Structure formats: structure tokens, C-alpha cells
């Protein structure tokens, strides 16, 4: 593990186009609540977190994957939600109990999109 999860969670490559749609969607990826990114049609973006622009230049695919799966492995105090973890959470709403924010396949799509963000 270390600083990265080098292998795909599903064993397959994600789809960047679907990934972009997940990132842009306020109730699926939720990414733009906190981040901004090169997604011009979404006018309402956040500034609680660094811009996603250039993420694919700063980080390898595996590093990006770990940051989405569970950013708290890198920074225990991070406010970025763990997208692929169901343990260590408190008072999760019943509708979401035991479920991850994104599925493994969705995470692979998001990773495939983020690696394309070279600048």
C-alpha cells in the first residue's frame, strides 16, 4: 500500500468519461462540493480543497486511487470523506449503512478521469 493502491479495485480499467460525470454530480461524487475542477458547466464549485486541475500530473494512478478510497490513510485529520470504507464511521444514516460512497467500479472511473487532468 504505502502511498498508493497500484492495482485496480475491480481488475479492470475505468472509463474516464463516466468518471467525469461522477465527479461533476453533486449527489454522486460530491467532489465539487469541496473541490473546484476543469468542469466549466458546473458553476457552483467548492474551495475547501485543492483544485482537481492538474491532479493527474501531481499524482500517479495508484496514488489517486488511495486518495479516493481513504484519504485518511495519508492524513488522519483530512476532511475528505473516505469513498471506499464502511468501518470507523459513526451514526451513518440507515439508507447508507454498510455501503461505500462510491462502488469500486465508480472509483475506477473517477481515477481514469483524474489521470487525464494533466494541467
Amino acid at each position, binding site marked *: 500500500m504505502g502511498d498508493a493502491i497500484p492495482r485496480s479495485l475491480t481488475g479492470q480499467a475505468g472509463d474516464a468519461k463516466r468518471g467525469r460525470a461522477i465527479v461533476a454530480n453533486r449527489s454522486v461524487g460530491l467532489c465539487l462540493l469541496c473541490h473546484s475542477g476543469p468542469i466549466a458547466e458546473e458553476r*457552483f464549485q467548492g474551495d475547501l480543497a485543492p483544485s482537481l486541475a492538474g491532479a493527474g500530473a501531481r499524482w500517479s494512478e495508484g496514488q489517486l486511487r488511495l486518495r479516493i478510497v481513504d484519504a485518511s490513510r495519508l492524513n488522519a485529520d483530512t*476532511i475528505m470523506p473516505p469513498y471506499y470504507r464502511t468501518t470507523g*464511521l459513526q*451514526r451513518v444514516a440507515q439508507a447508507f449503512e454498510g455501503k461505500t460512497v462510491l462502488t469500486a467500479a465508480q472509483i475506477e472511473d473517477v481515477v481514469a478521469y483524474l489521470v487525464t487532468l494533466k494541467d
Partner: protein
Amino acid sequence: MRARYFAIALFLVFGASFALAQSQGQSQRGSGADTRRSGYQDMGPALQQMQDDDTANPGMLFVQQGSKLWSARVGVAGKACADCHGDAATSMKGVAARYPAIPPGADRPVDLEGRIDLCRTERQQAPAFAHDSQDSLALQAFVAAQSRGQPIAPPDDPRLSSWRVQGEEIYRRRQGQLNLSCAICHDENAGKKLAGVTIPQAHPTGYPVYRLEWQGLGSLRRRLRNCLFGIRAELYPVGAPEYVALELYLMERAKGMTMEAPAVRP
């Protein structure tokens, strides 16, 4: 054309007063001055104006409705609020600014809604209002409006301390599928943009508020439930003591700030 000049004039006036407020904030900072902001200060000028103008503030319709309920005789006792409390402008001044509180004879705190329900059931001998019913909200708005301009003044009752501690504990605890806490947004990131919306400092200065998103008046508890829902946390049941504990903590945190109910919020 007219409208456009009006808009520009508005911008100039509000733009200027905003700049002034900013520079005052700036010059006070060094002297350890109060940096707390009401959600009012985080709204655009159009909404601020809506709140300030009683003829434009939709919350004032509820205040009017509440004033009728204030003098309506109801229940087995056939008594109106006014029969016991007289003129609300004097008897209710400052009341909303100190709730939640522990009413005489009770052993746990209640918020304004709970206090009104106690009078309903005990003095008027009428059924308690349904939570968040229009009539209850109207009476709350009417009572709260009597505290406009008053400083928030939580009671100095030692029995409230453990409740405030519990409220603060909830405020700081991460919860929900998104693993966030109130403090993460409202202390650490207040003033930043969450999907384009400025995160306010969460001071309960204006409740009940008319919220545009609700297209109606709502309680502080409803607002807290919205935030819990947003982080995908299990909601405490309506009427749960956890909300009163959170409200007590938020009021303590906002002590001395100015009451502005019924406020308008986006």
C-alpha cells in the same frame, strides 16, 4: 432602464457599506475583537434587504399570524396567551434570546417550541402543537420577533452545563457516511464555498427563519436536520433531546450576538 439604475444604486449603497464593514472588521482584528458573523453577513444584498424590510420579509406574515394566535382563546381553559402574558412587546422581550432553558418545575431544558407547548398543555389545556406545525412556527416567530435587536443571553443556570457539553460533543464529533463534523464546516471552513454556497458560522440568531429553499418558515431543529442529512448521518428523532443540547451549545457560542428573527436565509 429604471430597474437597472435601481440595481446599480443598490449595489453602490450595499457595496459601500460592505466595504466599510470589512474595513472595520480589519481594523478591529488586531485588538482581539469579536470576529463572529451572523449568517446575515454571508448573504447577498438582495436577501439582506428582504430580511430588513418588514413588507418584503415573508417571515413577517408568520409573525402576523402568530400575533392573532397570541390573543386567541383556546383549550379547555379557554385562555389566550395574552390573558396570562399581556402585551408581548414587553412580556416576551428577550425571551427567545435566552432559550433553550429549564422552565420552573421542570428538570430538563426545552426550546421555544417546547416552552410554548408547555403553556398550551398546562395552562390552556389544549393539545400540544405538532412539531413544526404552521401554528407553532407562527407563535415562535411572533415571540422571537419581540427579541429583535436583543443580545443572545443564555441563562446562567448550572444545570444547563452538562447539556451544553453534550451539545458541543455532538458538534465536534464526526458522523455520517461522509465522516464530517459540524465544527469542520462551521469553525474550520466557515466563509469558504461549499459548492458555491458560503458556509456560515452557524449562529442561531434568526430562528425561526424563512428559508428560500424551504419556501417556508422553519425551526433551528429543521436546519440542524438538514445539515445532518447532508453528511448522511442518522437523524435524531424529531423531539430528541440531542437537538436541545446542540441548540444550547450554539446559543452559548453566539452569546451576545444580536437576535434577528424572523431572518431570511437562502
